[in-house]
């Protein structure tokens, strides 16, 4: 890995001058919550001043720029009783800035499913490869995240540039050749021994600051054994089955496909829509048979996928510990409480 430092002011220049005509997306404040906290969202911005890289955590994740909530997979054009199929990918360039370690690790996990698995998805790959990702380390752990418990507090790859605030400069990890290319526009300097020291000090402080943890040891087995645990009913009874958790989660990727004929009956679009395993008809099949009619079962399977299924397939949990799901959940169902409840069963 190549390491560099840049003057903070230069980052602004990078966006306002060099990346002026590319679509840039970053953490923008969209509202103020009831308790006075700023609410951030990854949204397109025109000028660097609109975003705040010191944001605690965005309300929703950045996954929507790779797995949009709605995407046309293909279009069927009808003519004379026949049809042809048209497939398009999004190829426009985009710069995504301000992703935290959890966000980048989430992308790395999505890569495993969508870019590298048995059936790589061209829709995903095309977006991923044409997105320039600039991450940034958190200054201190967020109040409710538990990324350290699931090994998502540190990033090693999956970005083009990765920053850490070390006072008046950013310490930059360069993750790709195009990253270096871009960085060279704003004359980075090689790191000095002091800068390395202060980077390591900052990182150490950050890692030491974690309070929120879950016990993940043996979790896959625990989940298996506790399949019938009353813990599921306890939380299932609270669940609104509204899908908010999966919508905001950076790694939830389930979807549904439906077809929509155009009003002139000349074509039909096959549309993918992100779905959630908590929604009532997720496992419903023809004849209205539902494999998971109960809220608790649906909720349980979300945890199974996060902490057991994914481990079985890829050797690591799918969850990156951002607790966005916990924040989004009106019923306050959050991984820390649910998992510690389960672990307590033992």
């Amino acid at each position: 890995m190549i390491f560099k430092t840049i003057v903070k002011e230069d980052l602004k220049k990078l966006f306002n001058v060099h990346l002026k005509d590319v679509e840039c997306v970053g953490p923008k404040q969209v509202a103020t919550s009831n308790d006075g906290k700023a609410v951030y969202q990854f949204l397109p911005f025109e000028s660097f001043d609109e975003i705040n890289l010191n944001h605690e955590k965005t309300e929703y994740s950045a996954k929507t720029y790779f797995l949009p909530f709605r995407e046309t997979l293909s279009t069927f054009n009808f003519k004379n009783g026949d049809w042809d199929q048209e497939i398009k990918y999004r190829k426009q360039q985009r710069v995504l800035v301000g992703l935290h370690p959890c966000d980048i690790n989430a992308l790395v996990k999505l890569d495993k499913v969508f870019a590298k698995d048995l059936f790589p998805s061209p829709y995903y790959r095309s977006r991923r490869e044409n997105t320039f990702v600039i991450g940034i380390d958190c200054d201190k752990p967020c109040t409710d995240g538990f990324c350290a418990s699931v090994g998502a507090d540190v990033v090693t790859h999956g970005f083009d540039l990765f920053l850490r605030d070390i006072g008046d400069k950013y310490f930059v990890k360069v993750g790709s050749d195009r990253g270096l290319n871009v960085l060279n526009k704003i004359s980075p300097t090689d790191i000095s021994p002091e800068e390395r020291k202060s980077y390591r000090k900052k990182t150490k402080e950050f890692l030491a600051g974690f309070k929120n943890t879950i016990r993940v040891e043996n979790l896959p087995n625990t989940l298996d054994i506790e399949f019938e645990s009353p813990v599921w009913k306890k939380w299932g009874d609270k669940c609104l089955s509204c899908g908010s958790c999966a919508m905001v989660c950076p790694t939830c990727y389930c979807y549904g496909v439906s077809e929509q004929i155009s009003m002139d009956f000349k074509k039909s679009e096959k549309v993918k829509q992100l779905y959630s395993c908590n929604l009532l008809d997720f496992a419903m099949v023809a004849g209205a048979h539902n494999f998971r009619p109960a809220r608790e079962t649906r909720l349980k399977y979300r945890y199974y996928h996060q902490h057991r299924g994914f481990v079985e397939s890829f050797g690591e949990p799918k969850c990156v510990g951002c607790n966005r799901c916990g924040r989004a959940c009106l019923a306050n169902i959050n991984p820390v409480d649910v998992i510690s409840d389960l672990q307590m069963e033992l």
Partner: protein
Amino acid sequence: MNAILHAYEVTKEEDMVEPLDYNRRSRMKNFDKCFKAEITNIIRLTEMEKLFQLRMINEDDKNRFTFLPGQFVMLELPGYGEVPISISCSPSIKSIIELCIRKAGKVTEALHKAKRGAVVGIRGPFGTHFPMEKMKKNNVLLIAGGLGLAPLRAPMTYVIENRADFKDVHIFYGAKDPTQLLFDYQYEQWHRIDDINLQIIVEKPDELWTGPVGLITKLLDDIAIDPDKTYAIVCGPPVMFKFVCNRLKDMGVPMQRMFVSLERRMHCGMGKCCRCNIGSTYTCLDGPVFDYWSVMNLKEAI
């Protein structure tokens, strides 16, 4: 395009639409592109089921499309939707694909209205298959209940075509009543094949029915098998295969030698949409064919 971002290789569209090829699936780049196929024949089997014979329109596609017994395709009806359907014919016949489809909902109902000559799309084949190679030199039990005969027909034709490779072959098929029997026009032919024990049983006979009556497990009473040298394929609704498999287990057949085919909701066939996910297992990638041991270990499978 911004020049400074350009240094990175940008995905080219041509890369993405490389033609499909089964068996090299990790090298395939786009699985959303359909093979176009024409419905060449429609055979009415019962009130609810029809057999559709399809032929690939493109000659290259036809040559490239190979499958193994037990695999399924995603059948696309542009404008209506896409449904997973097991391939219900012999893998050795290249020119034609047969799908036996029950009228169950939106897409399948539309298909039942379709006429000969209509053009549909096919993606796949997807999923695991029955281990026909392993089964060779053994006895085989092919057991189907109801619509289960559709997925069973592929391994069955395989066994028939390669009869010499197998020892004793039993084919058991059960249905609620005689009107629901699929492929009845073929029984005569199957009966005549030398040294195959074909038995058909119904739960509720009508006046014309002369065959055995009862549940399908009853047919197992009359046979003697060597459990160490026997493989079984059981297709049908979960309640049915549960009973049959447990019965076979009691007869001493190892659970890992019994195979079943599961059905789940599917929207992609490629292990992405998660709709068919059972805990950690994707029915479309790790299934639909599972051995009974795995099924018993899948929570919620039955």
